[in-house]
Every structure is written in C-alpha cells, then in structure tokens.
C-alpha cells in the first residue's frame, strides 16, 4: 500500500482561483471543523501522515490530535467508534482508505449506521459521514481498485454521494454533515489531482440532484464520479462526429434523481449509462431499469451500459485500461444508441459478463 501513495506537498491554495479536488475536500473539512466543534476526522493515517491520499495533510497541525484522530488498522473498530460518537451527538467524519477495505466495516455500516434509526423507533440518529476512495486507474490492482459504491447504494438508510467535480468535493461535505443520517462519500482516486476553477458557494445545487454537466440532444450519457471526465471526453469526440451527447452527473447514488435522468432521456430518447462497477447487478442496471420503467415510451434505442469488465481489476496498465470504461467505449455505446455505428471496435470485453476465472 505504502509504495503507491501519492504524496504531494500541501499547496494550501494553488494558483489563484484554481484548486484541486484534494484541496477542495480538505478545505471542506477545515471549514466544517471550524464551524462546528462537534466535527472531527478519524481514520487510518489521517493525522501524522496526512491521509493515505494526502487529503488531510496539515489538518493535524491545525486542529490537534483530539479532532484529527489516527485510528488503528481495524475498519470495523473505528467505523463503529464513529457511529457511537454520532449517536451521542458528535459529527464524525470517518475516512476509510479504499472501498475495498470498507467491507471490513460493512457490518457497522449496514447493521448499525443504516438501521439504528429504524430499530430504535426513530430515537437514534446516526449523523456520521464516511469518506472513502473508490475506483481504479492507478495500477493498484484488484484489492484496491474496485468500485463498490453501487453496493452501498443498495442500502436503505444511507445517503451515497459521489462528488465528481472540484466544486462538489468542496461543497458536498457540509450538507452531508448536516444530514441527520449516515452519508457515504465516494471519492474516485483518479480525481484527487484534478484541478478546476472553484465557483462561488451560491449556485451549489445541493446533494439531492443530478446535474447536466453538458447539454445535448441526441443521447444522454449518465455517469458519476471517476467516469465523468471520460464521459465528457467522449461527448467531445461525439460532437466531432455530429452527435450531441448530454452528460448527466448523478452526484447522488442514493437516492437517485429520477426526475433529472428522466427529463434528459425524454429529450434525447437514448441513454448510455457509464458505471465503473461490474455490469451484473450494477448501479447501471438499476438506472437502466428505472429508465425503462419510467420512460419506456421515450426510449428510441435499448439503454446501453458501459461498465467494467467482469474480472478483478488487473494490475498491468494496458489490462487495467482495457477493463475499465473509457472514452472510446462510451463513444461506441453512444453511437450504437443513436444507430450510427462507428468503425466497429473489436473490444467487447465490457459487453459480456465473464466469470472471474476464464472458462
């Protein structure tokens, strides 16, 4: 794990106005802790090391060990501790290194955080925010690269957010902390170094809604998180081919903003869902099903899905790239949807479910 850490010196604020996703996230936590003394950060290496991905770099110095707490290597223990703290009125931010490790805390998240309000007859709120890294693309191999946020989106009682832009990284945390129920924030590992101009606070669309990142008329490319930049790149390519793609960023994976998705598809009549999770039983499957249920008579083509190949994410760079949704596979899917098949791509890896073991 340590070998692959990306440590960057903390640029308190990069060039004027521009900031990175990582810095935006840090700034959000800093702001939250300044505003509310009940807020504290807990997780593996968040303090002295500055966070596995450098998100909390410098916070220990600013807020001290009481509020920036290094936790032992037991996800179940420190997530459980965070839930306990939330139950007694604190506003914990718990950082889990990657979504793969969150499985060790799944019992706490599902059986406690997501259910206590219900089990207690509404007496026990669990205002915890759990942040974690997700996704592939950095050659971290099969135990650090999976996209399991779709699993969490399956669970009633949780709110699941996937900030894909610097602005969302900056502004989603505050409403997440304000939510009296557990909120999971999935930060795609490939986004931390993305930098962008940070818009001013007002105009932030909240955490309930999906947002059209790029308007278009021919096909809706629906995605979230780390796949958003790929979808936008695909939309550029499609535009050159005369296909106007609308890119919709889900932002909230649970609950899903059916209205925005539906409105988009009602305009374009075609949908491509891009999801870095595996195709089978995926969030993309859920979206496809909802579009079919709610907008059957708007659909002019089968809903296309671009998902990860159904294999453990490979380590080798070329194989990893081939296993993930990419701009060109999104372009191909969009062309299929609009019935304008491009020079065919031989690669259909993302088309078929495959077993983990070649059969």
């Amino acid at each position, binding site marked *: 794990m340590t070998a692959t850490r990306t440590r960057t010196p903390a640029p308190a604020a990069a060039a004027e106005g521009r900031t990175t996703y990582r810095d935006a996230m840090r700034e959000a936590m800093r702001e939250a802790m300044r505003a509310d003394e009940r807020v504290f950060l807990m997780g593996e290496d968040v303090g002295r090391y500055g966070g596995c991905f450098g998100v909390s770099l410098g916070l220990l110095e600013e807020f001290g060990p009481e509020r920036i707490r290094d936790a032992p290597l037991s996800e179940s223990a420190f997530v459980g501790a965070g839930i306990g703290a939330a139950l007694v009125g604190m506003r914990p931010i718990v950082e889990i290194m990657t979504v793969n490790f969150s499985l060790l805390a799944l019992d706490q998240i599902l059986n406690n955080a997501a259910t206590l309000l219900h089990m207690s007859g509404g007496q026990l709120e669990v205002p915890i925010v759990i942040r974690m890294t997700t996704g592939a693309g950095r050659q971290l191999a099969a135990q650090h690269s999976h996209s399991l946020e779709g699993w969490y989106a399956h669970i009633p009682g949780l709110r699941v957010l996937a900030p894909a832009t610097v602005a969302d990284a900056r502004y989603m945390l505050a409403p997440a902390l304000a939510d009296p129920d557990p909120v999971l924030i999935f930060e795609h590992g490939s986004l931390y170094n993305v930098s962008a101009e940070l818009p001013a606070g007002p105009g932030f669309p909240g955490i309930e809604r999906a947002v059209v990142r790029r308007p278009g008329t021919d096909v809706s490319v629906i995605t979230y998180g780390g796949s958003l930049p790929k979808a936008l790149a695909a939309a550029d390519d499609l535009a050159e081919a005369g296909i106007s793609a609308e890119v919709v960023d889900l932002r909230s994976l649970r609950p899903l903003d059916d209205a925005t998705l539906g409105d988009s598809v009602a305009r374009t*009549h075609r949908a491509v869902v891009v999801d870095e999770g595996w195709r089978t039983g995926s969030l993309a499957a859920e979206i496809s099903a909802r579009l079919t249920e709610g907008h*059957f*008579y*708007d*659909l*002019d*083509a089968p809903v296309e899905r671009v998902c990860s190949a159904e294999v453990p994410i490979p380590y080798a760079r070329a194989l990893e790239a081939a296993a993930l949704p990419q701009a060109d596979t999104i372009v191909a899917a969009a062309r*299929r949807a609009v*019935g304008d098949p491009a020079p065919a791509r031989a690669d259909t890896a993302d088309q078929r479910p495959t077993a983990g073991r070649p059969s």
Partner: protein
Amino acid sequence: MSAFTMPSLGADMDEGVLREWLVGPGDPVRRGDVVAIVETDKAAIEVECFESGTVGRLLVPPGTRVPVGTPLAEIEHGREPAGPARKDTLKPGTRARPAGPEPGKESAGRAANAVDSPARPAPEPSGEAACAGAGPLVRHLAQLRGVDLTALSGTGPGGRITRADVEHAPSPRAPRVRATPYARRLARDLGIDLTAVRGTGDGGAVRGVDVRTAAQGADVRAGAQADAAARPAEFRRESEQRTPPAAPAEEHPGRRTDTMRRAIAELMSRSKREIPHYYLATTIDLTAGQTWLRRINRGRPPADRLVPAALLMKAAALAAREVPALNGYWRDEGFVPGTEINVGVAVSLRQGGLLSPVIHRADTLAPETLMAHLKDLVERARRGRLRGSETTGATLTVTNLGEQGVESVFGVIHPPQVALVGFGAVVERPWARNGMLGVCPVVTVTLAADHRATDGAVGARYLTAVDRLLQRPEEL
C-alpha cells in the same frame, strides 16, 4: 410447380395485403379452395386457389403488402389430393366452386339446397362445426391464445387438431413490427402506421426518426398511400372472437371507412373524369311480375319468398344478353365485350361505403338461385367476408335503391365497365294501359352508359328489353 399470386380483386386494385394464410406448406388444395385472406382497400377477401395440388412454400408472410401478381405461395402439382380437400370438411362454408362449366346442374343443386333448408347454415365457418375434431383442452387453449381453430391444419390422427398445433399456431395478432417504444408512441401521436414505415435501426427496427420521416412523407402525399397501409390488422370477425391489439383498436372502424371512402372517391372521380355518361330512364309496369311472384310465393315460408329485386336483377342480366354492347369493358383500344354476363351488385355497408360483389353468369341463374346468391353476397359483403372471385369480373353493375324508397337512381359507372343499371322502388301509381286508367305497381329503371362505347339508341334498346322481359316473368 406453379405460383399462387396476389390476385386482382377489382379493376382498381394495384396491391393488397396478405392478411392471413388459411393453408400451410404440405396442405393439399383443390381449385376453388379458399387459401388466404387478402385485404384490399375495400375489404378483407377470401382468396381462392385456381389450381389443385399441394401447397409448397409460403413466400409472403401475413401482413405484407404486395403488388398484384406477386407470387404468394408455391403450388406443387406432384400429387392430387385423394379425397375432398380437408378444408372442405373443416369449413362447411367454403365450398369449392364448380370447376367445370355445368352451371345449370350446380345452380339447380344450390337452389334446391336453398329451398330445402330454410335455416341455411351460415356461410361463415361456424366455430362449433370447425372444432368438432378438437377436444375440450384444445378448444380451451385455442380460446385462451386467441387461435382460430378453423385456420389450423391438424397433425393428429385423422387430421385432428392437437394441443401442439394450437401451441405452435402463429399468433393471430398483427405481425409484430420491430420498433422502439418511442417510435411506437410517436407513430400513435402522429397517426402513422408502423407497418408502413421502413426501419433504419438495428435489425430494421423502426426508430423515432423513421416515423418522423414517414410522417413528413405522408403529409406530402396527402396521406392516400400511407392511409391505405394504415389499415387495421384486425377487422373481420376478430372483433367478436379475439382480443384486438390494444393500441390502435379504437381507431379501426373509422380508419376502414376512411380508406374505403378514399378508394370510392378515387374510382368515382376517375369514372366521372373519363367516362362521358349518358342517362336514360323508363318506368315499367310490374303488374305481371307481381302477379307471378304472388303465385309462386304462395305456400312458401317467408324466408324463401322471392322478392321483386331478384326478378329485376334477372331481367337486367338477360337484357344484357340481348344488348351485349353494354356488357363488357372499355379499354384503351375500345370496347371489349364480356364473355359472360357477370353482374356486380352495389351493396351499401352499414358503416358507410359500398362494395360490389359479383354474381357470375347471372343470366343463367334461375330467379331463386339468383336471390339466394344475392342474400348470401349481401350478408357476407356487409361482414367483410367476400371471396376473391366474388369481387372481380363484373361486366355490368346493377344498383337497387328501391329499399331506400327512392324511385330512380342515376348511377356512376364502375370503370372499366360501360353501363350501370339502376332500379328504384316498386310503387303503385295511376297507370294508363289500353286507354284505361288503373293503379299498377311500377318501377323506374335507369341506365347510365358510357357514350364512348354506345349511343342512346343502344341504351334505349336495353331498357326496352328489360321492360319486355319483365312482362313475361315466367320465362325469366
């Protein structure tokens, strides 16, 4: 081997939709068997096979619109079916037409039949009779799945319809069009028939853009063609027996009428545009006819009684024999006399529109036979169950608006025919004869004739002949 082709079911028919196959590959057929149902702009028509043999491949799937003359199926002549074709036993209504020229015998037989059994079995294949060989399970399944047992050929012992036959029977519903949901919605909103839209999507799927294109095309073409294609798939008896397809069901009757209206409009416009009509009329004393009718109707049950219409029809047909210049067609090269006297009968439909089924060689039929034919044809025309041979070949048309109460009708000739005979109501009028005034039943007979083919004198001779014939009804 020969081909069974899309027949021309009327001079104005260029193409038709093969709606349903009543036979399958391997079925023996005999000349005159009804093998398919074809939908024209006007009606769904049972089409007969003109050869005997065995059905080979079916070349055109149901629901396809093809031009007249397109091969629809192969007929193999290797072996003649031994007994009567199975269709005969399955479908009491679809009797083979006489193959040879023995009209007298045949018509006598039919007449006797008609007279003997007052409750004539409906010409429609009745469900019970057809299902006689099918067990209750099969019948239940058929009803459940909306399968018409009469259209199935059984594979069980003795041609019995088995459960598997029903389960493998094609769905009676309209052929499924491969179209996206959006295209379907759009088509419904724009009133476009998907079956007429060429799909450009995956596997020929109709997509939204195809419907839009079709809609634009339809606007330009004033909709005639598109609407002809927009014929509902299910029209005939399905409405009672089968669940019609959900979406366009409510539009059916109106659409059909529209289409027919348009076909009539086209034909009648052509007639008035091309044919220089002249009109003659005469009023005929029908005392002799009425007296004769009263005499022969005495003792007959009401259902079998002859009505004046039969006499008038017979007289009109016989008169054409005397004046052959009115019986035939006007072609580009001139008048072509008809080889037979086939009388088209204008039948008005309750939902509007009209059909003109044909009584072949009407001049050779006894009035009773003529009347039986007339009743049968009118009934079936109104139910949209005419056979191909019954819609073609008319050499002269007769229209009788008497039952509507009018006294004279000046008709529009059905091209390419050259004359149309009209009868009004039989009414009592003061009538002078031999210097004496009396009250007599009279009928006004009119003639609309094509001045290119004949002149007024010919027409006058015709009407005079009708008059003379009606004075000797016993000879009709």
